[in-house]
């Protein structure tokens, strides 16, 4: 069934997420969240550490049940896991007992693709992320950046309509982050999926996204700002940072983010 054209790829309405605490009582991570991601739109969420950005992403993925509010995917209420989304985790999520090739190919198994064909496609995707020479490596033999490339190929081979990314390049060094950011933009430009990208790095958010959403410090964090990024595409992550327009946007967003970051630190800088 084709979705109605007007429907958002991801739509969060009045969303609240709470967790039961070990000692009894509840901790409200986020509340009153209203956010819509249009098909083909790249949205970045920034906020201080511990503000519940990842929790929001998990709700969109169906990994976390909201305490209140609605999660809609292309206009349909989300029940269970979000099968139309691919999720790129911050931590290493590859199966350590499978080679790079098998890790990518196995992503096609739930779709019922025959193994030979899955391997062929996986080879293609690993070539696109620049890992043709590392097909037979197990994850522990790959560097942090290479593992992220495999994870990216594993997510993209399924051709999801939505990409959910949880600080995917967080653990990488600065140069690798730039390279991965450019790789992501290149791959994304090919078919423009809807992207929800969580990061604590405002520069990364602006360089990548069409829109930057700012969250307040937790608990009960909510969205306090929504800024369009009108920088032209295609962009180069390293070069776009030098443009005056970039600085202008950065200054504007940082003005609202700064207060929240300070609040988070004052509250003890919850991790």
């Amino acid at each position, binding site marked *: 069934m084709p979705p109605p054209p007007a429907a958002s790829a991801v739509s969060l309405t009045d969303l609240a997420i709470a967790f039961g605490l070990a000692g009894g009582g509840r901790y409200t991570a986020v509340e009153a969240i209203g956010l819509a991601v249009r098909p083909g739109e790249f949205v970045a969420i920034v906020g201080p550490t511990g503000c519940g950005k990842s929790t929001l992403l998990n709700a969109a993925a169906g990994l976390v049940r909201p305490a209140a509010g609605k999660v809609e995917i292309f206009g349909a209420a989300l029940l269970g896991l979000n099968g139309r989304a*691919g999720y790129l*985790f911050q931590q*290493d999520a590859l*199966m*350590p007992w499978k080679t790079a090739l098998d890790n990518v190919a196995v*992503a096609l*198994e739930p*779709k019922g693709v025959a193994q030979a064909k899955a391997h062929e496609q996986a080879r293609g995707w690993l070539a696109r992320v620049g890992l043709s020479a590392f097909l037979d490596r*197990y994850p*522990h033999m790959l560097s942090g950046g290479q593992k992220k490339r495999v994870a990216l190929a594993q997510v993209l081979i399924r051709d999801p309509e939505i990409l959910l990314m949880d600080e995917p390049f967080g653990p990488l060094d600065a140069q690798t982050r730039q390279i991965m950011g450019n790789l992501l933009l290149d791959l994304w430009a090919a078919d423009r999926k809807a992207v929800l990208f969580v990061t604590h790095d405002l520069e990364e958010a602006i360089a990548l996204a069409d829109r930057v959403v700012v969250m307040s410090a937790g608990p009960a964090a909510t969205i306090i700002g929504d800024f369009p990024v009108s920088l032209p595409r295609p962009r180069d992550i390293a070069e776009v940072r030098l443009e005056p327009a970039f600085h202008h946007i950065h200054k504007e967003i940082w003005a609202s983010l700064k207060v929240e970051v300070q609040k988070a630190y004052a509250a003890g800088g919850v991790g």
Partner: protein
Amino acid sequence: MSRAKLLGMQVGVGLAMLLLWHVLTVYPILGAPKQIQFFFSTPLDVLARVVKEFSSTEIWRHLWITSIETVLAFAFGAFGGILFGFVFARGETLAAVFDPYIKAANALPRVVLAPIFALWFGLGIWSKVALGFTLVFFIVFFNVYQGVREVPQVVLANARMLGMNERQLLRHVYWPAALTWVFSSLHTSVGFALVGAVVGEYLGSSAGLGYKIQQAESVFDVTGVFAGMLILAVFVIVIDMLVSAIENRLLVWRPGPATGAQS
């Protein structure tokens, strides 16, 4: 240290101990050699006995029986341990209800079961298989249980997001994770399978290495006991080497000395 040097030192220690044994039992240092030899035999006598044993076909039958018992005890124990480990790890309530019984059963010294198994399963191989089973089962069970429950949450969440159903999760995530733990306990569990077989034979049987040793012991034939122990020790080393080879083959993905050179 180089491999050759290490091997040389290992052999050296063995030879030194054998030499000490030889000197103390052949020369009148601690007393009359005849008397000492009754209690301790001599290395050359033991070696001669082993050679004599292997010149007849008799010993091969005993080795074969013990091997069969070991392999069967391991196979049944591992299968049962893996099955129950999976079921209990996936069913919280079941695990909680059975917890005290499993702990009690595991705490029981298994040797006391040997006579009961002999009564139930007769003096043939099956009472020994049963004894080995009770030893292997719990080791594998606890390891699989642990392995399945400690699958990294993020790997599991990722696999779910890739759209895997329960069966696919079992095959691609739970099973390989559990297998790691089974293999980490493989040396122990194969060893215990052999212990079950030999102890069972020792306590009541008509064939096997444990029977051989028991026979020699019952007539105070110390040379025979030591010869049996020597054969048993070599047998254990051979099995352990086989296990290592299988382990290295199946766990190539694991970081560690086996693959460390490539990374």
